[in-house]
């Protein structure tokens, strides 16, 4: 495909609001994860929580009461960072609100709002959930609709919900929409806020680590969940110096609902498809941002896939030790990491990895270093065997 420019991006994670906060954290090796509870959860684990979302100041204005939920608060907070909303407003002036698409990936949207309604209902006679606005909170499309409302956009839109591959796949969907002329530019984003369903659900699958998540570590024992939101503007022709989306690749595992195919065959196909769409050889990639959740099976399968496609020399790391696994937002968060690595010439280490698992053979980085980075591959894999790899590059 013809590369698409990324004229602006922003990201808000437990490391802070805006891309400078994430860049500082990457450079300083400071994790956003803390040993903490969430909404009365009794699980002993680390999470990437954004405390500001619980402040009264984060509440949505009365006119948007219908949309009130943790996920839309997070959307509102993220849109305020890095002049993102202003950049979209300028683009809207130039292209028209009808010609800018919105593509948002999420795995939970405002599900936490429904959890609260159930809890309120369980405490009352009858036990039925208290009334709540399903369309504008829990429904998966709520965040994309809220983004369109906040940004005043009336073009095409899609909510992609493919578990932890959601927002990586939103990039692919946006690229397709631009390429077939459905829109002239796209706001791509990812959002997932903390909720009890994901915490206790992953815990039921025995995938939550008691220790902080340690991707690629010999003693890794699972994920740490985080919340995050980010956005990027994708368009055919960007300003000089803008980085680009070079390609994307998607595949299915056809194996199991919640476990990866052990040899990483599906992951391999996604990476190869991304390289094919960008017409690049594996050697063109300077750094791979791994999905690297920190579970025993995921990291092993991904390692096999990476080595099959790239050999064992390409520098790679998972950055989930900084942000936690932000689920549906992970693709967007790691797109932002990839773009920061390109813009600032850094190869981040695998944070919290103390002893590299000898079973893994890819070049997992244990030290953050400065180096020119012209091309990054970012992996996102989800339940249901949905895989997506994105290729980002320096200005053409």
């Amino acid at each position: 495909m013809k590369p698409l420019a990324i004229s602006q991006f922003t990201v808000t994670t437990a490391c802070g609001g805006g891309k400078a906060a994430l860049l500082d954290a990457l450079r300083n090796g400071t994790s956003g994860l803390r040993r903490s509870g969430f909404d009365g959860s009794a699980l002993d684990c680390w999470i990437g929580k954004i405390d500001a979302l619980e402040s009264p100041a984060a509440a949505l204005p009365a006119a948007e009461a219908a949309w009130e939920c943790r996920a839309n608060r997070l959307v509102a907070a993220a849109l305020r960072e890095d002049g993102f909303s202003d950049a979209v407003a300028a683009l809207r002036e130039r292209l028209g609100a009808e010609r800018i698409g919105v593509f948002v990936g999420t795995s939970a949207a405002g599900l936490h709002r429904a959890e609260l309604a159930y809890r309120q209902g369980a405490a009352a006679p009858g036990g039925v959930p208290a009334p709540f606005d399903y369309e504008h909170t829990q429904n998966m499309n709520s965040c994309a609709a809220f983004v369109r409302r906040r940004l005043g956009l009336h073009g095409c839109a899609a909510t992609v919900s493919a578990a932890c591959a959601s927002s990586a796949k939103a990039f692919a969907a946006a690229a397709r929409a631009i390429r077939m002329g459905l829109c002239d530019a796209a706001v791509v984003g990812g959002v997932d806020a903390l909720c009890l369903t994901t915490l206790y659900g992953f815990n039921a699958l025995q995938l939550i680590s008691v220790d902080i998540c340690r991707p690629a570590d010999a003693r890794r024992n699972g994920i740490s969940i985080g919340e995050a939101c980010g956005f990027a503007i994708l368009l055919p022709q960007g300003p000089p110096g803008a980085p680009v989306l070079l390609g994307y690749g998607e595949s299915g595992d056809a194996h199991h609902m919640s476990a990866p195919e052990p040899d990483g065959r599906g992951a391999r196909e996604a990476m190869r498809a991304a390289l094919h769409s960008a017409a690049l050889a594996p050697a063109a990639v300077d750094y791979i941002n791994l999905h690297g959740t920190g579970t025993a099976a995921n990291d092993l399968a991904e390692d096999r896939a990476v080595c099959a496609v790239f050999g064992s020399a390409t520098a790679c790391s998972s950055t989930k030790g900084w942000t936690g696994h932000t689920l549906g937002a992970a693709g967007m968060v790691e797109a932002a990491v990839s773009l920061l690595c390109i813009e600032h010439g850094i190869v981040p280490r695998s944070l919290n990895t103390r002893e590299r698992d000898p079973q893994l053979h890819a070049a997992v980085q244990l030290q953050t270093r400065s180096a020119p980075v012209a091309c990054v591959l970012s992996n996102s894999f989800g339940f249901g065997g949905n895989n997506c790899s994105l290729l980002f590059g320096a200005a053409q």
Partner: protein
Amino acid sequence: MELFVDAAGVAAPGLHGWEQAAPVLCGARAWTELAEPPYAPQLLPPNERRRAPPGVRQAFRAAEDAWSRSRLDLAQVAAVFATSDADLAVMDRIAGALCRPVRNVSPTDFHNSVHNAASGYWSIATGCRRPATTVCGYDGTLAMGLLEAAGLALADGMDVLLVAFDVPPPVALQAARPREIAASLALLLSAQHAPGRPRLRLGMTAQPESRLAAPALERLRTANPALRGLPLLAALAGGGGQSIVLPYLDGRGLQVDVHPA
């Protein structure tokens, strides 16, 4: 944006598969509420068949119906699953469990609770490793899915299965998202022309959404997000030469010109 329809499938009250539904949809026969034939997903291995929640089974119903009249190799076909609400009964069990003093969430419920569960089961059932996407656009879900399928066909050159489905919510969520009927609709789509394939031309429009003349069918159309696609199926059943509008976003529609094969 133009693409071709290889086959269609449908599963809804009184519309039990394309062969039976086509004459009803084009007005040659009146709609009647027939007893629902028994069904078990044919393509699913026994383990997955046992675990698949109602929404997933409903998705398979229309997908298998479309596939039964297609010569496409399912292992080579990309897929778009379009569902507004997926399996709310699964979410309801989890949300209920989270209210109890000991929060025991079933692992099977959790992996079935993801919005893309149907796409996962489909990929396991067919052995297909092609891209599979799941989209949600509330009541505009069907149009959103059709556009995503068009993207995979036109920008990426793949044959695509589009499956739209939704099932009734559990009692606890009837007030939040009222719905009484389960329904699904499937289209096998391709960028390639072939004999017998009607052509679709897509474009966004400010025109109001199409309605169906028969009151029984019009009631169905608004009763389930997947059935917002009934005017498109009716145009296909009628042999084409029609232009219809599907609801999309904020009162905007997706216009579909249906040209005869």
